[in-house]
């Protein structure tokens, strides 16, 4: 199972919509859709990124409103949740 399939499988097992997963990871539904479709460039937990579009600007602006320690804490929480979902998908 490759990365994009893993994300979709984990999400479905968790009975979550793309929007719900996006909300928990602090991103946008369209980003999750791109991950699952395999259109994002090399999704892995090393660096999860999105392509350049208007949603990115919203993400950036939201992040810039936070203090550095809040940004780091948010990232750690997102990584932890993603790891949990990956474990669910792997079974």
């Amino acid at each position, binding site marked *: 199972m490759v990365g994009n399939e893993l994300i979709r499988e984990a999400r479905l097992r968790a009975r979550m919509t793309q929007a719900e997963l996006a909300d928990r990871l602090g991103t946008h539904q369209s980003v999750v859709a791109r991950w699952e479709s395999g259109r994002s460039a090399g999704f892995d937990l090393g660096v999860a990124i999105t392509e350049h579009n208007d949603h990115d600007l919203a993400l950036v602006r939201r992040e*810039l409103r936070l203090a550095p320690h809040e940004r780091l804490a948010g990232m750690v929480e997102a990584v932890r949740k993603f790891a949990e979902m990956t474990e669910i998908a792997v079974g």
Partner: protein
Amino acid sequence: MAEFDPVAILRCIVDREVEFVVVGGVAARLRGAPLLTQDVDITPSLTRPNLERLVAALADLQAQLRTSDEPAGIPFPFDPLLIESANVWTLTTRSGDLDLVISPDGTGGFKDLIRAADRLVIALDPELVVNVASLADVIRSKEAAGRDKDRAALPLLRRTLEELDL
């Protein structure tokens, strides 16, 4: 695999009074780029006393070599000379993965990066302050590295830099 706790890793290194700059994905996130990463990259000062302090911190962290074949780590006898002998050390610790990057691509290492770095508060209670590379330097390094994942991150990093410059 240890749960990723970058604050614990960096607090341990700070406690040993190691001079370093946070670089890579964690630096980008601290600067406001909404990226995810699961390792901490640091660039240490290469003075002998500093590398000795770093070796002590690595012992505190129970650092081991991390490879694709052995992600759980391989015990390794770190010493200052050894650390200087390679440009990148990929490690796993009791608090997650840590990479020592002696001279990130496109940069001149600690002396270069510290000039534009800022001291940022990365945790409260107790407060933890570390040197964090500038976003421009993170971008410079990723441009020079040129790996797929570095190139893929560049649009978002540049977008963040644009917003910071407004």
